[in-house]
């Protein structure tokens, strides 16, 4: 029989992993909902944020400054990608655009991975000393608490932006009806640029919180992308709340499966869930 406090500790770690997954899911869902581009390079942006940040820390910058600068670097790169590659993708329409988006971002992620391995071949993590906290008598890892706190704040900010601000409302208009948005004077292309930059920044943040306590290498990028894909399939690829719920749910399930049956079966459960959802409800991707 497993002790209750062990289960609570596992649940907290699961929530932390879930928040990380939710951030990735939000990142991929924002862009797909807005412009039909399934960003398969999203994990590469997460890894780039970690690499930029650790490189700055090595240069002697403080942790917070380095993190902000790392995210800024990722945002700028996202802007460049949107203005060049994605502009070419947005020229086509419908199913062709979806396919073109998949292959272009796939090419981008392979390009980024192939380039970065040459310069940053090792594994990186953030030097955050968190230790173990006591939560009502139960020992939980501090890193997990930090991840949950930072992630929830970030998700809250994204939702507040979409619900509360004028640009956020304009974004949701494009989500619902692109032609209607044009009619009331919203420029979908401008919104798409803004949202792409926002999404890669969220992905960057996901990478940074993951790097608290875990190692990240260039090869992790594609793994993150695959996780993001699973979250968006399970949550519905156009639904932000779905992405958050699916992320947290899968995170907790994965951590418990990890604990009881091992990481190898846990991974297969993740993919299996995505396959079952795809076959049972193919309309999640449409």
């Amino acid at each position, binding site marked *: 029989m497993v002790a209750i406090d062990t289960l609570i500790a596992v649940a907290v770690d699961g929530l932390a992993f879930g928040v990380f997954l939710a951030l990735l899911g939000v990142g991929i869902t924002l862009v797909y909902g807005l412009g039909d581009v399934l960003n398969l390079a999203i994990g590469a942006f997460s890894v780039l944020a970690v690499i930029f940040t650790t490189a700055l820390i090595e240069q002697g910058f403080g942790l917070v400054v380095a993190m902000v600068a790392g995210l800024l670097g990722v945002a700028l790169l996202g802007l460049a990608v949107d203005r060049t*590659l994605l502009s070419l993708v947005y020229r086509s329409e419908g199913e062709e655009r979806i396919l073109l988006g998949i292959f*272009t971002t796939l*090419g*981008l992620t392979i390009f980024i991975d192939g380039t970065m391995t040459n310069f940053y071949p090792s594994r990186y993590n953030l030097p955050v000393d968190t230790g173990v906290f006591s939560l009502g008598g139960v020992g939980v890892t501090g890193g997990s608490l930090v991840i949950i706190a930072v992630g929830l704040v970030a998700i809250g900010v994204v939702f507040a932006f979409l619900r509360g601000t004028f640009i956020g409302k304009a974004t949701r208009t494009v989500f619902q009806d692109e032609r209607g948005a044009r009619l009331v004077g919203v420029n979908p292309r401008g919104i798409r640029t803004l949202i792409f930059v926002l999404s890669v920044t969220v992905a960057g943040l996901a990478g940074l919180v993951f790097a608290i306590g875990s190692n990240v290498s260039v090869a992790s990028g594609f793994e993150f992308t695959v996780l993001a894909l699973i979250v968006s*399939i399970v949550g519905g690829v156009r639904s932000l709340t779905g992405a958050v719920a699916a992320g947290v749910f899968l995170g907790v399930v994965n951590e418990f499966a990890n604990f009881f049956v091992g990481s190898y079966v846990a991974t297969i459960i993740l993919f299996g869930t*995505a*396959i079952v959802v795809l*076959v049972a409800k*193919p309309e999640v991707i449409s």
Partner: protein
Amino acid sequence: MNWLPGNSARDLTVLGLLLVVAPLPVLGSTYYEGVLAHFVIFAMLAVALNIVFGETDQLFLFMGGLAGIGAYGTALLTDWLGVTAWLTLPVAALFAGLVGLSVSWISAKRKFTVVLISILTLNLQFVISEVLVGAREYTGGSTGFSYQYFSMDAIAETVGVNETLVLYYLMVLLLLALLVGYIALVHSRYGVAFNAIRQDELAAASIGVDVVHYKVFAGFLSAFTFGVIGAFYALEAGYVLPSAFSFQTVDVLVLIILIVGGLRTTLGPVVGAGIIVAIEEMLGSTFTNWRTAIFGALLIIIFLYFRSGVIPAVDSLRSGRFGRRFGGAEEEPEDEPAD
């Protein structure tokens, strides 16, 4: 080969002759013989993808996984039953074929779009990769095992050449057989049905084309072929590892090869494989670290600017001289239908 339409017979003969003499200038160099075998294997993989993706718009992104099923399946069955790999290979390939059949059947029944099929199969690819790494007691996990099946040393000794060369000529035979099969397929009633389904699925169904049947047939055929090639792919490497059958190693490369050469062309997969393997060799040992980055950039460029492929581009330069056999989807068939 009189029954082959147009100039196909002549083209295949020329290709066959080229492939037969190709090892002569590098005879004795196991390295270059390996490169040639590698080239033929990837050309075959691209032919198989051409059937399922080119002809029926089902983008299979678990080619590595299907090849892995063929390779590991053959090895495990051989060890378990204690019979020759020549007997277990068809069984393993049949299993891969059945996996492809199920995916095609579900996709066609539920009217999956090409995007959905690609995402579904991508997920399956990761499951297969995960199983190959995880089922350690059977697959040797990520350390793999040495792949010594299909003993060909007897043939090699009789003819007096090394085993790599025997394997290469076997591959060439298989490639030519695949190409003949492909030409026969697209000129049969299957090819006509594939065309009709690709242009308008609903219209095809309304005139009595059994859409599910044709898609499932293409899915099975390609998956079976991937399974067969997988075993030879492992045999050529001499060692079997899960990473050799990963998405990044197989699927990305085969997709690039097929698009570069030209979708729905007979020689496109061969030309594409030639170009890609040549690029790999030119990068050599100096730029080998940049191999991945270059293929990533290549993937972006060909999809944004060069989706028609080499063969259709060459063909449009010389249009009039050659018939439909190199043609893309837009062209009308000029040949008389094969019997």
